[in-house]
């Protein structure tokens, strides 16, 4: 099937696909996102392919094996979904495959031991859509992920793909922008700027050249929403950008993908190729006379390149250094031309907004934060993974209802949101809604959607130090406050965590925070204060303990803790003695062991290997 030269041809092709698709045939869908691949999805897929071939099932029953994008429920991978039943199997191993084929595919039965078990109610749930993790979700940006093969454009067509594009081609560019404005869509990368307004101010600038860019740099550690979308449904991003290009009159687009996401680059590249082949990109799109194509630009390992002006410099083939934003990029951006840069998730929402309308989108979410948001729920929580929920859900609901509560029954202490530009919100404020504005008022920000759950074993001073250290490494070095101020903040935080903290250090930290907020060149610097100020605000007692008592209440800061072995719990098995790199544990077999604290470097290995939980930190 070659290029499609008109909308009529596209509709005919779509109809052909729909007619050919036999939807009640068994299909095995194996999550092939980075997380599940790390967990061994490939051998599972191979096992399925082999056994189906061996048993000749392809002849009797047409079984499709689809490798899909990230389902989001990463902790429980490898994930295998069976359609049309809608069953989800967790933690599947190659050895489980024969049983699944026999029982579920041929026999129509459920393999009990592989399905979800609710940790609190012990309820066994087989159906994908009933599992709490998925039940509370409303997937728009993630709508296709896990259900389609991202490397097959026909899957995307069957799922309703490029219907938005067809509709947009029949709309006036101005009306497309109005639709996006009315939807209330705000930037999903962290800035939260109203998308329609951004597009509107770009077209207001007189120019014959405009660019549309996609920010796939996703530098916030703990966030992998954009990875999942780029890997699992690249066409939704592409379609969104084509619609944006039509609205803005842009003929060239770029998708900037961070270097650390090779699978995203691969899937996006093949999706672009497929789109071109089908006449959806390139010259005279679907016979409309409109030209537009997209290039991929790869990042080089620099968090600062997520900042819009730095990203544009990097795209042009230069260092990713930001510039003063006194003239906004919608006026002068890439190559000094009017440019619209939007985040992956923002673009992913655009096709649905055009198809289903602004009113539908605006009916979701809250007054000022419309629609849904994809969050990556990670850290000390039971169900880690990606969830998409309407804006306005409370932190508590997210952590407890969807996340299933704190790991190992520990106490919920705080969530960190917004990455290095965000802050920590304590448990006592967990009824706050998650939207663009509520968290900002509390001293953090929603950011790109990374939600890091922390428990009683997390030291909040260590968390502040971690983020400042991260920013020290990622600072581009152009401006004084960030380049020279962050290392001074790190010095102070290091002093505090190593027992050299002094009374005036907190005030000095606050002063440096103030200096960066007012004086730094770009968002990396101006928001660097958040992790420090929010932890000082909500966890001042921990700072005081480190400084005055030289103690780390959470038991994390190595200089302030001591390792010891509880003689009651120790069985004298000798395992820790063998593994200790300092050889500083002594004791006879079957007798309580002892750590020589003068030699102990607190590496944590003894605690790691002890099966009797006998190692204590004080």
């Amino acid at each position, binding site marked *: 099937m070659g290029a499609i030269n008109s909308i009529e041809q596209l509709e005919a092709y779509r109809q052909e696909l729909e007619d050919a698709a036999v939807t009640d045939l068994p299909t095995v869908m194996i999550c092939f996102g980075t997380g599940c691949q790390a967990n061994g999805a490939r051998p599972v897929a191979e096992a399925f392919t082999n056994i189906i071939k061996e048993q000749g099932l392809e002849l009797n029953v047409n079984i499709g094996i689809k490798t899909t994008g990230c389902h989001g429920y990463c902790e429980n991978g490898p994930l295998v979904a069976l359609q049309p039943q809608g069953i989800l199997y967790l933690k599947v191993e190659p050895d489980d495959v024969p049983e699944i084929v026999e029982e579920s595919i041929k026999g129509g039965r459920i393999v009990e031991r592989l399905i979800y078990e609710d940790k609190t109610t012990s309820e066994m749930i087989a159906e994908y859509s009933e599992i709490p993790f998925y039940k509370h979700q409303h997937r728009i940006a993630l709508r296709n992920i896990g259900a389609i093969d991202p490397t097959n454009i026909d899957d995307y067509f069957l799922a309703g793909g490029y219907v938005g594009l067809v509709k947009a081609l029949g709309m006036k560019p101005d009306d497309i922008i109005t639709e996006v404005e009315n939807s209330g869509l705000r930037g999903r990368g962290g800035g939260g700027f109203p998308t329609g307004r951004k597009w509107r101010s770009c077209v207001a600038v007189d120019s014959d050249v405009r660019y549309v860019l996609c920010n796939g740099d996703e530098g916030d550690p703990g966030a992998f929403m954009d990875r999942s979308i780029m890997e699992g449904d690249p066409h939704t991003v592409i379609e969104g950008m084509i619609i944006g290009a039509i609205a803005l009159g842009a003929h060239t687009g770029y998708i900037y993908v961070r270097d650390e996401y090779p699978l995203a680059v691969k899937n996006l590249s093949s999706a672009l190729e497929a789109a071109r082949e089908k006449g959806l990109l390139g010259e005279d799109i679907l016979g409309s006379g409109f030209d537009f194509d997209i290039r991929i630009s790869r990042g080089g390992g620099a968090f600062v390149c997520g900042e819009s002006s730095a990203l544009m410099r990097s795209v042009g083939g230069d*260092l990713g250094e930001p510039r003063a934003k006194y003239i906004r990029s919608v006026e002068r951006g890439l190559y000094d031309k009017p440019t619209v840069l939007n985040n992956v998730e923002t673009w992913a929402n655009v096709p649905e907004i055009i198809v289903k309308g602004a009113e539908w989108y605006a009916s979701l979410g809250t007054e000022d934060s419309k629609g849904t948001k994809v969050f990556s729920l990670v850290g000390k929580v039971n169900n880690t993974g990606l969830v998409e929920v309407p804006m306005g859900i409370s932190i508590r609901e997210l952590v407890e209802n969807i996340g299933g509560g704190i790991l190992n029954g520990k106490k919920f202490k705080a969530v960190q949101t917004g990455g290095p530009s965000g802050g920590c919100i304590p448990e006592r404020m967990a009824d706050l809604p998650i939207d663009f504005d509520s968290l900002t008022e509390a001293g953090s920000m929603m950011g790109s959607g990374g939600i890091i759950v922390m428990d009683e074993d997390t030291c909040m001073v260590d968390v502040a130090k971690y983020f400042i250290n991260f920013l020290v490494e990622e600072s581009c*070095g152009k*401006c004084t*406050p960030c380049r*020279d*101020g962050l290392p001074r903040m790190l*010095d102070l935080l290091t002093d505090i965590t190593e027992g050299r903290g002094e009374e005036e250090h907190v005030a000095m930290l606050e002063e440096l925070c103030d200096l960066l907020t*007012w004086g730094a060149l770009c968002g990396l610097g101006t928001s660097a204060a958040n992790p420090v100020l929010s932890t000082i605000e909500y966890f001042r007692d921990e700072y005081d303990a480190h400084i005055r008592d030289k103690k780390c209440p959470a038991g994390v800061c190595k200089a302030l803790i001591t390792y010891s072995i509880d003689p009651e719990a120790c069985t004298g098995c000798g395992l820790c003695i063998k593994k200790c790199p300092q050889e500083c544990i002594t004791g006879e077999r079957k007798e309580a062991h002892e750590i020589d604290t003068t030699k102990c470097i607190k590496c944590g290995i003894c605690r790691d290997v002890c099966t009797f939980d006998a190692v204590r930190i004080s």
Partner: protein
Amino acid sequence: MEKISVIIDGRTFEAVKDQCVLEVAHENGIYIPSLCYNSEVASSGGSCRVCLVEAHQGGRMRLVTSCNYPVREGLEIKTDTPLVQRIRRGVLELLMARVPDSEVIREMAAAEGVTGVRFRRDEGENERYKCIACAMCTNVCAEVVGVSAIAMVNRGADKKPATPYYKPSDVCIGCGACAYACPTGAITMTEKDGVRRIWDRDFNMVTCSVCGTPYIPEAQVDWIVRTTGKDRSFFDKCPDHR
């Protein structure tokens, strides 16, 4: 050239639209300290942050670097508020901690009331010497001279100007523009017996046929001749005796 009016510290001045605040201030005798900006170098500015001032526009206030903030109608600038002073002092204290050897920074800081540094010394201080990583040198080399022998390498606090691999550059013409432009005099350029040394490379100088003073590197003459077609004999005499 559209003329507009802008208010600085309560007084109204005429300016050209999109002219930078710093220029308007200096034209009218208002002092704003600055280090990394040079009006002849379009790519300079925005780095050191000592020129930050309050910009009031459209009901909002923020601190902006006056060296590259464009004046537009309705703009009010305040150069000396408690906020501006506090941030300026903070920036200077950080610079003092970074380059304790720089007299320029010490003097500028003292003028703002900063005489001491409360922070630990920057670990890389010996390598920093007087360099505030403002990129004036590399901007001049790329934009004004057009040679790009040096570039700003590394990220963060280790950012500094260097030749590739820190080896003597074969495209450097020894003109010394970088050293002249540097606001803190951090680039070492020495001359002895008709040989100039800069960026670890020795340049033989051409001497004036009239006064005998070595005045320009041969490499620079070669480059000018190559790029402009000017006759070599033009350089036999120094500018004073041409």
